[in-house]
């Protein structure tokens, strides 16, 4: 290995194009992997955020800063039987005295106050444990993993000590970044006027057609918009699922296509260097030495690729934050998973090349042992 690396350093001029091509392919692979995750998150967060409808102020990161009190009376007048549940959300500045604002899985964490009763998305057997616990809260599985919390532990949120009453699983990005408390408890916990709430959601089981609902309300909403997953008709839900699956399928096809290019590139490069490798074999290099050389190429390619990918990732995150204020939809944890997957692809393709080369015969000659 050491001598393989030594000869690799001497051969760096020759292997520079190899490293460059591998790095670019590898980086592309990482970006596509991460984009796949991003798309998954985006679809989930858009179509599957929270059951029940809610109205948000335009331009706000829903549902965090949505103040809709002026709309609600009109809404209830049209649908007097509609059950609306108020929510309070506040952005968390510190968790366990650390800022959650960092480039990665959590660009923000919110603490939310909700009514916990059957019919509410937050309600399940796990959440029932919240009632009766003083200063109890529920945290998502992602937050539990990040802060190494389990049920019964304490967590300090904005300098308030809370007890973790339960950990919930969710496919929603927003809920993944949320700490949930009882609506009435949170009122005494944060400074907010008694008649103010952050947003409302429709807690009844009725499924509304989005456009009908919007027309029926017939209100002028210059500053507000209605946003909800479950106000779509059942038929439209099927369309959403189809679009979701189709988009993911396209990305998987692109992903496979890039891997094929990747393996093919490796194969072409190996062919180009065959004559040099035969010279090495003829001059006494064994398979172990050759493996060392390959391993050195692999390490160098990985090193350059990871650095390139990280730079691309940072540029992309910055771009997302500046343009869309959505750097959070590109989770670093999934980016790391993509790196691991791509390292495996790179290793397999290079080893494949090595095995292929070791059993191949020089042109017009017998096999080199």
């Amino acid at each position, binding site marked *: 290995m050491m001598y393989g690396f030594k000869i690799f350093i001497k*051969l760096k001029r020759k292997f520079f194009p190899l490293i460059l091509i591998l790095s670019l392919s590898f980086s592309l692979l990482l970006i596509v992997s991460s984009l796949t995750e991003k798309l998954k998150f985006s679809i989930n967060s858009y179509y599957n955020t929270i059951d029940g409808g809610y109205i948000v102020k335009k331009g706000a990161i829903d549902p965090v800063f949505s103040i809709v009190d002026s709309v609600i009376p009109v809404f209830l007048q049209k649908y007097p039987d509609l059950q609306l549940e108020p929510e309070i959300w506040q952005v968390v500045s510190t968790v366990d005295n650390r800022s959650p604002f960092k480039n990665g899985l959590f660009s923000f964490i919110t603490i939310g106050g909700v009514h916990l009763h059957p019919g509410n998305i937050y309600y399940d057997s796990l959440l029932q444990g919240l009632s009766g616990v003083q200063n109890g809260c529920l945290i998502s599985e992602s937050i539990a993993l990040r802060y190494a919390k389990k049920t019964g532990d304490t967590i300090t949120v904005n300098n308030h000590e809370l007890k973790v009453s339960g950990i919930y699983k969710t496919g929603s990005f927003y809920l993944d970044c949320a700490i949930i408390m009882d609506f009435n408890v949170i009122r005494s916990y944060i400074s907010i006027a008694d008649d103010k709430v952050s947003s409302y959601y429709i807690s009844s089981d009725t499924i509304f057609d989005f456009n009908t609902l919007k027309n029926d309300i017939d209100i002028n909403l210059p500053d507000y918009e209605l946003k909800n997953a479950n106000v779509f008709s059942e038929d439209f839900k099927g369309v959403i699922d189809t679009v979701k699956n189709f988009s993911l399928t396209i990305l998987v096809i692109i992903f496979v296509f890039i891997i094929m290019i990747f393996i093919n590139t490796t194969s072409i490069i190996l062919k180009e260097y065959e004559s040099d490798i035969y010279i090495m074999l003829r001059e*006494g290099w064994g398979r172990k030495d050759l493996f060392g050389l390959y391993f050195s190429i692999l390490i160098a390619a990985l090193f350059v690729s990871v650095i390139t990918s990280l730079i691309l990732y940072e540029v992309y995150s910055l771009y997302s934050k500046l343009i869309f204020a959505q750097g959070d939809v590109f989770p670093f944890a999934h980016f790391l998973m993509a790196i691991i997957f791509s390292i495996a692809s790179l290793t397999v393709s290079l080893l494949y090349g090595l095995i292929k080369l070791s059993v191949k015969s020089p042109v017009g000659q017998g096999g080199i042992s």
Partner: protein
Amino acid sequence: MTIHCSGITREYISKTDSIVALSSVSLTIQSALMTIIRGQSGSGKSTLLNICGLIDNNFDGTLIFEKDGIIENFNKVTITNKISDFRKNKIGYITQDFGLINFLTVYDNILLPFHTKPVEKQLIDKVNELSRMIGIFHLLKRYPESLSGGEKQRVALCRVFLKGPDILLADEPTARLDKKNADTVIGYLKELQKQYNKTVVIVTHDESVQGDRVITLKEGEVESII
């Protein structure tokens, strides 16, 4: 070191065709002599050389190397580690394409066989000494692509001298050289054979190259040994 070839047959098989390059060749290449192998194109000269150099081990028959009463047998089922170790320690090879890696300097090309273990100072001193002797000391930091054919072959020779193998196999070593350079290369090979008692085998079309023995091949068989 003496090489005994016993019933060596080599057949190249493709999907549509099969060609017998060597057919039951039995001969002995004497130790510490310069042996020339001649023959027309396709007579099996290079194939025989590749088999003697253990580059091609896909042959029928037996290859025996003998030195000071120690015998080493090789055939198509010999394990690869034994073959590569023997080739590494006992055999040197010179080809008409010089066998140099263009992106390594002359110095690193000479040391190529030794990059699999730590390069000691003694070895570096020896490189300097040999390169001065062969007249390529001033080329050590250059790359092969900037050298002439004669210079490249001298670099290849320097590498072989440094390795100091018991057997030196040369496949058309003068084919791409002018008369002056060809004479120089053959001169060095003779010096290696005489001064260090090495077994030298040269495959060549060049009638001016003379050795202690001449083996002539025709259509994969031994036509004459003089």
